[in-house]
């Protein structure tokens, strides 16, 4: 950590202590945290180099207590190195606490945790899917939301683990043949509605071959032939991505070239899915997929206040 920053080690440790208990930080601390995190992300690449060993994780979507389960399974930072592949916010109750914790960990241990951008780390998605509402509920104004979403523009888009595991939130793009193409993109912007950055965060693998416009309305669906070519051209062992819920927490497709990892168990309280993490060893060709279930018990959620949406006031 830089000692010239107003966020000292002791200060960030105090933040972490609160955040691990699922307590939000005061507005001023969040602003400082976002400012410091922005400095760190500014020095990171669109294809961030990550060393092994590392544990790779998928979507969290504000499921804070399930993130705690994840850390129980995989170990805490800095004992374990982590790479998160985006979608920290929206849908769940605790997007603020989740993203705050991950950012505080990044500031405290910048080389022990890598945080990529997901399609939900943007202004348009967070206004639709709940993060904005949560910020308003917890802070009473939109400033905090603005600080977070301004910061999201700086999150790296992809990572390369151990020189061979390519990690990103969504999938491949017809505009991108090589990692070098990604390196030269200007990523410091709102996620566009189309184009390479959009595709990297929105695309999905498909069973057919070739390319198809995505049923989601953004990004593409790409076939096994596309994955094979990309992996071969870029001397990769595989593509690790998130973005899609999977019943078992992880799902291999495209003859082992593409792995989906999803880390939000029992999604929307109904799907009954397991979550998973990909634990990559010192050698990037040794890895283990570990599954986990949603956190049981109320865990401090006993007294959920009755809040009324504005439409009924």
């Amino acid at each position: 950590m830089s000692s010239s920053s107003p966020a000292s080690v002791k200060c960030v440790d105090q933040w972490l202590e609160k955040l691990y208990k699922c307590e939000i930080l005061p507005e001023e601390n969040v602003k400082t945290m976002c400012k410091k995190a922005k400095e760190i992300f500014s020095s990171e690449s669109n294809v961030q180099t990550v060393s092994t060993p590392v544990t790779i994780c998928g979507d969290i979507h504000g499921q804070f207590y399930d993130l705690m389960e994840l850390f129980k399974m995989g170990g805490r930072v800095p004992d374990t190195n982590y790479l998160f592949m985006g979608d920290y916010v929206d849908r769940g109750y605790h997007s603020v606490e989740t993203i705050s914790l991950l950012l505080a960990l990044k500031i405290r241990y910048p080389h022990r945790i890598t945080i990529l951008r997901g399609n939900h780390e943007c202004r348009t998605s967070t206004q639709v899917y709940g993060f904005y509402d949560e910020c308003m509920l917890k802070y009473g104004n939109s400033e905090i939301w603005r600080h977070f979403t301004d910061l999201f523009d700086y999150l790296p888009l992809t990572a390369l683990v151990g020189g061979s595991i390519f990690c990103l939130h969504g999938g491949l793009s017809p505009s991108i043949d090589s990692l070098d193409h990604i390196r030269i993109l200007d990523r410091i912007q709102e996620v566009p509605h189309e184009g390479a950055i959009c595709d990297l965060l929105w695309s999905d693998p498909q069973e057919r071959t070739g390319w198809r416009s995505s049923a989601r309305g953004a990004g593409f669906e790409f076939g096994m032939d596309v994955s094979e070519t990309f992996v071969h051209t870029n001397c990769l062992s595989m593509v690790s991505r998130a973005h899609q819920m999977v019943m078992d927490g992880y799902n291999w497709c495209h003859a082992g070239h593409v792995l989906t990892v999803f880390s939000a168990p029992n999604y929307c309280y109904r799907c009954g899915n397991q979550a998973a993490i990909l634990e990559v060893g010192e050698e990037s060709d040794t890895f283990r997929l570990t599954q986990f279930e949603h956190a049981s018990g109320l865990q401090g959620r006993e007294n959920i206040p009755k809040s009324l949406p504005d439409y009924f006031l």
Partner: protein
Amino acid sequence: MDRLSESSAFDVSTHTFTVPEKQLKSPEDMLHWSTSQAYSNIVGFVLTLNEAVKNKKISDEYPVSEITRNVMGILETIEKWIDEIPPVDQPQRFGNKAFRTLFGRLKERGPDLVKRVLPPELEGAVPELCTYLVESVGNETRIDYGTGHELAFVAFLCCACKIGVLHEEDYPALVLKVFDRYLNLVRRLQMTYRMEPAGSQGVWSLDDFQFLPFLWGSAQLYDHARIKPKSFPEEDIYNSFYKDYLFLAAIKYINQVKTGPFAEHSNQLWGISGVASWHKVNSGLVKMYKAEVLGKFPVMQHFLFGSLLTLQPSPPRIFTSVSTESSESQTPMQCLTPKATPFATPSNSHNMLPSHNAAAAASLFQTHLGRQVATSKSDGTPSAEDSTSPDISSQGSI
């Protein structure tokens, strides 16, 4: 105001049907949507049906025409296919791929099903109506379902009304029989094929899959003497009354499929149980529907526009004496939802919608059909004002 005799503005001899397509390509297009004929039609239709089911139980007496029964027959046929196309045991990501088989069958056989409910002179409408019907069961590729698919079913019914196949006397049955049947169908699809919530807002929305059973369902309970909003989360209440009330059936279904305390997994509904009256719940849900479903680009980008629901600008409104308190709120203005207030940038234009007064919107829908009707009290006497209007006419709170 006297109820005028019906005369349809739809002339099949001069109308060219088309196969509906997506036309909203970017959030900037939301302004076209919110000022379009399709928007007016859909909002008017939803509000009209809302009026039609106020204080009505499913088991009450109301007309159930042969056409209505035929539409229900279509839904029953599709539901039978679920038994004929069981889930498959194959490696899959989440949703069961057998859904794609059923979807394929609906694409193939849907036109014949729809033809059964149309008179011969309206057979040209089959492809257009069938497109909405197919869209209403979910997404074939992603094996998911959401409020956009529910909206497609509304579009199907709305188009059937526009071409004169369904009529005003069918309105209660459209909700209490047809839509109820549709809900049973999609719930079976969701459970059988393990369909994923499409674009769910999670704990920040009413429900992952549906919206209208809560909206129309709250109209059913509008003046209920005993069941108040605070009691709908109670198991005794929804178990005792779900057969008659869409709202309670929806709560029962949620409790069947979700895990954990209701206050946690359905926090918005839990909050709504704190609202004092069903009047307020209903008017709030109308505002919420316009903002959270009709006002969101991620939902509306998938909406299909054809010859009956078009993106053409809505014609200037001709206001009758249907509702008196609405006049000052009838200018085609933009209504800021709470979220849009600080961010009036083009990229957020999808959060902005014009305001609609309930009765005027209902009147607008009828006007599009070529009919003019007065809103009336349940005893049939014309009323000078609609009892829901004061709430619905207000802008989204800022």
